[in-house]
C-alpha cells in the first residue's frame, strides 16, 4: 500500500496526499468543517454551491464549464454533508492524469490553480456575489432540498433522523431549511465566505497520479494572505441512551410503506469500541448473509430491502425497509426480535466470520477508488489516530464474539418512523 503524506499548510489547515500512479486520474479537494447550526447551515451550503460555479478568471458557469471541457472533461463539484454535528463543505476537482493529455498540458497544475481560484477569488462585485447568480443559486438549492422529497427511501430516512435528533444539531438539514435559504442576504454570503476561510478547520486532500508539491505550494501561498488566528472548534455530542421511544406515523400517497428505526449505540468516534458496533451492524443487517436479510426478506418474504447502517460519527444505527402497510408491524417485530437474538448471543461463528470477511473485503477495496479513499480519510478527521484501511480491517478481524454481544446490549431503540399510504392504517 502506498503511504499517505501529511503536512500542515497553516493554523488548522491540513494537507494530505497519496500519490498512486495506478490511477488514470487525479482528485483534489478542500473540505471546510464547521459546527452545524440553524443560523449558518443554509448560508454555508449556498456559499459552497456558489463558489463551485465561477471565479475571477472564468466569471460564470458557462466560461468555467468551457475551461473544464478543454481540460478533458475535468469536473469541479460542490457537496455538503454532515459528519456528526459538523457541517462538511466540500469542493473538489477531478481530471485525467497528465500522461493522457493529447497536447502535453499539465492537468493537475491547471486544476490546482482553478480550485484555488474558485475558493480564494470568487467574482465579487463591490464585495458582493453577483445578484443574478446569487438568485439562481438560491433557486437551485431550494429545488435540491425539495427533490429529496421525491425519493421516498431517502425522505423517510431523513424524517427519522430529524425526529430522533430534534434536540441535537444533527437534526438540522445539511442544506438548511428552504425558508432560511430564501432569507439569505448577499452581505451574509460574503461574511460567511470570510468566516470559512479564516475560522473553519480545513482538510485538503490530493490523491492519484500527480505530484502533490506544486499543489501544496498553491494552497500555501493562497492561505498566507488569510488571517487564521482563531479556529472554530468542532465537536459532536452524543445521546448515549434513548429515554423513551418516539413513535411516529405519517401518511402520503405512496404504493409502498417505509419503515425506519433509529437506535442509539452509545458508541461513536473517537471511542475505541466503534469497530465492535461496525461488526454488530454487519451481522445484524449489513450483508446478504445478515439476520435481517435472511429473516425479514428471505424467510418471511416481507420486503425487497431491509438493512442496517451505523454512523460512526453520530453513534446511531438506522434500520430501513420498504413493506406493504399491512406488514409494517410484522417487519418491526421481526427486526427487534433479530436484534434481541444477537443480544442473547444467538449467532454462530459462521455469521461472525461472514461479516468479518465482507467488511475486510470492503476495507481492502477502498484504495481502488479515489472518491472512496477521499471519503475514508475525511471520515477519520476526528479519530484520535488516522488509520489506513488495512489497519481498520485488522482491528475488525480481532473482535471477539463477546464484544459483539456487549455492543448489542448497549443498543437502545430511540425512534420508529413509518411512512404509509394515505387511507391505509397500520395494523
Amino acid at each position: 500500500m502506498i503511504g499517505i503524506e501529511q503536512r500542515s499548510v497553516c493554523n488548522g489547515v491540513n494537507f494530505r496526499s497519496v500519490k498512486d500512479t495506478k490511477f488514470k486520474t487525479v482528485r483534489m479537494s478542500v473540505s471546510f468543517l464547521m459546527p452545524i447550526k440553524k443560523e449558518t447551515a443554509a448560508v454555508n451550503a449556498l456559499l459552497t454551491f456558489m463558489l463551485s460555479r465561477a471565479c475571477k478568471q472564468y466569471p460564470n458557469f458557462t466560461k468555467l464549464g468551457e475551461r473544464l471541457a478543454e481540460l478533458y472533461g475535468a469536473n469541479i463539484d460542490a457537496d455538503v454533508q454532515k459528519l456528526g454535528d459538523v457541517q462538511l463543505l466540500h469542493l473538489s476537482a477531478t481530471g485525467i492524469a497528465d500522461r493522457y493529455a493529447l497536447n502535453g498540458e499539465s492537468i493537475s497544475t491547471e486544476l490546482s490553480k482553478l480550485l484555488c481560484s474558485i475558493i480564494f477569488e470568487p467574482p465579487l462585485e463591490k464585495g458582493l456575489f453577483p445578484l443574478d447568480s446569487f438568485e439562481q443559486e438560491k433557486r437551485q438549492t431550494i429545488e435540491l432540498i425539495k427533490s429529496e422529497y421525491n425519493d421516498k427511501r431517502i425522505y423517510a430516512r431523513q424524517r427519522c433522523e430529524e425526529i430522533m435528533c430534534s434536540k441535537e444539531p444533527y437534526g438540522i438539514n445539511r442544506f438548511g431549511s428552504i425558508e432560511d435559504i430564501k432569507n439569505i442576504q448577499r452581505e451574509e454570503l460574503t461574511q460567511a465566505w470570510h468566516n470559512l476561510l479564516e475560522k473553519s478547520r480545513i482538510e485538503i486532500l490530493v490523491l492519484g497520479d500527480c505530484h502533490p508539491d506544486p499543489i501544496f505550494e498553491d494552497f500555501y501561498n493562497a492561505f498566507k494572505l488569510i488571517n487564521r488566528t482563531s479556529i472554530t472548534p468542532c465537536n459532536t455530542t452524543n445521546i448515549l441512551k434513548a429515554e423513551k421511544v418516539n413513535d411516529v406515523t405519517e401518511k402520503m400517497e405512496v404504493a409502498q410503506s417505509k419503515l425506519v428505526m433509529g437506535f442509539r449505540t452509545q458508541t461513536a468516534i473517537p471511542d475505541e469500541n466503534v469497530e465492535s458496533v461496525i461488526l454488530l451492524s454487519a451481522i445484524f443487517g449489513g450483508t446478504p448473509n445478515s439476520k435481517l436479510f435472511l429473516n425479514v426478506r428471505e424467510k418471511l418474504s416481507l420486503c425487497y430491502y431491509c438493512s442496517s447502517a451505523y454512523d460512526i460519527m453520530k453513534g446511531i444505527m438506522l434500520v430501513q425497509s420498504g413493506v406493504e402497510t399491512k406488514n409494517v408491524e410484522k417487519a418491526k417485530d421481526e427486526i427487534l426480535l433479530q436484534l434481541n437474538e444477537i443480544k442473547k448471543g444467538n449467532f454462530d461463528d459462521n455469521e461472525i466470520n461472514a461479516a468479518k470477511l465482507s467488511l475486510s473485503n470492503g476495507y481492502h477495496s477502498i484504495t481502488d477508488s479515489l472518491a472512496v479513499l477521499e471519503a475514508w480519510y475525511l471520515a477519520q478527521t476526528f479519530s484520535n489516530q488516522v488509520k489506513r484501511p488495512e489497519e481498520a480491517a485488522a482491528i475488525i478481524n480481532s473482535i471477539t464474539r463477546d464484544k459483539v454481544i456487549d455492543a448489542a446490549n448497549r443498543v437502545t431503540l430511540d425512534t420508529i418512523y413509518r411512512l404509509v399510504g394515505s387511507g391505509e392504517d397500520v395494523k
Partner: protein
Amino acid sequence: MNIIKEIKSERLGDHYYEVKHPSGLKIFIYPKENNNSTYAIFGTKYGSIDNCFKTSDEDQVKEVPAGIAHYLEHKLFESEDGDAFARYAKTGASANAYTSFDKTCYLFSCTDNVYESLEILLDFVQSPYFTEQTVKKEQGIIGQEIRMYDDDPQWRVMFNLLGALYHNHPVKLDIAGTVESIAKITPDLLYKCYNTFYNLNNMVLCVVGNVDYNKVLELCDKMLKPSKPVKIDRIFEKEPDDVVKPRVEQKLSVASPIFELGFKEHADENRKTANQIAQTEILLEVLASESSPLFKRLLDAGLINQSSFSYEYFEGPGYSSIIFSGESKDPDTVAKEINKEVADLRKKGINSAAFERAKKAVYGRMISSFNSVDNIANMMAALTFTGHELFNYVDAIAEADINSINARLNSQFKEDCSALSVVLPLD
C-alpha cells in the same frame, strides 16, 4: 483448444485477452496488477425485452410473461444445496446481479479468495434449481421490488416515456414485469428460458483486476459445461418509426414536476456502430452540456437546474432514442427550447471550437472510466453483446471529426418523432 487474442491500447497503456473457450463461452481477462480488488461478470444476452423467441432446434415460437428474465435472475441464486450468497459468505466477495433490457449479469467483487469466488460464480450460474415452492416464495420479494419502483418518479417518468415512444417494442415494459405478469411464472417456464438463453454461446465472462490469467483459464476449463451451438431468434413485432403519442402525464407524490423528452430514431436488428455512438455522445456534449448556450439559456430562464438536468443516448436491440431529463417548472417550454436549439444548430452548423472542447471532454471522461474494474467489466459485457470492442470505442471518440457530428445532428432529433413525459405533483 482456447483461441487467445491479446488486445492492446497504445492510448490507454492497457491490454486484455479475448479467449474463445471450447465450451462456446467468450472470455475477457483484463489485468490490473496494482489493484486490490477483482471484479467478475458472468452475463447472458438475455433481458426483459426477450419475451418472444425461437431456437434453431425447435419449430415453435415461445412467448413468456413480462418480467421473467429478472425473476430468473433472482431464482438462479438458489440451488439444491443452499444459496449462492451463503457460499460467497465464505470468501468475503461482495456479490450481486442485475437485469436490464437486453442482458442479465451476475457479478462479484473481492480482494481475497478470487478464484474461490470465481468458482462459485461459474458454478451457480450453470446450476439452475427451480421448484414450485421456491418460485412462489419470490413473489412477495419481487412484488415489493415492483411496488418500490411504483413510487419512484424517475422510474415512472422513464417508462411512461418509453410507452409514448414505442408502439410494440417490449422495451416499453417494466423490467421486473407487473404483479399480475409474474404471478404466471412457473418452474417450467423458468427452465425453458434458462435452457434457451443461458447457453454459453450466448454468454460472456469478464474478469478485471489482480488476476493470473492462466489460473482463470484453468478454472474455466474445470467448471464450464460445453453448450451446443444454438441460434436464437428473438422475435419482435415491427416497430413503426413514429411515436404513439407526443405527450404523457402522471401525477405522483413529487415536490416539483420532472420530465423526460425522447427523440426516437429508426432502429432495426443492426445495432448502431461504435462510430455512430461516439459521435452522438460528442454531439450531445456540444448541444446540452453545462458549457453549451442551450444550457445557459434554460438555466437563466429558471427552467432547469444543474443537479438534475441530464441526457443520454439510449440504444439497444431494435430501439434507439436520445433522452433528456430533469426537473422543471415548465417541461413543455424546455422541450420547445431544445427543438429550437437543434434547428438553429442545423442551420449554422457546429462551431469548431465547441466541437473540439466537446470531443476532449468525452474523451477525458472515457479515460477516467478506466480507473474502475467495475466500469471496465460492465462496459466490456455491454459492448460484447452490442458487437463492439472496448478500445475501438475509445479510438472512435478520439478520431471523430466535425463533419460526422454535423451528419448525426441532421439525421437525429426529429421533432415529429419525439415525446414528452411529465410527472406532476399531486393536486
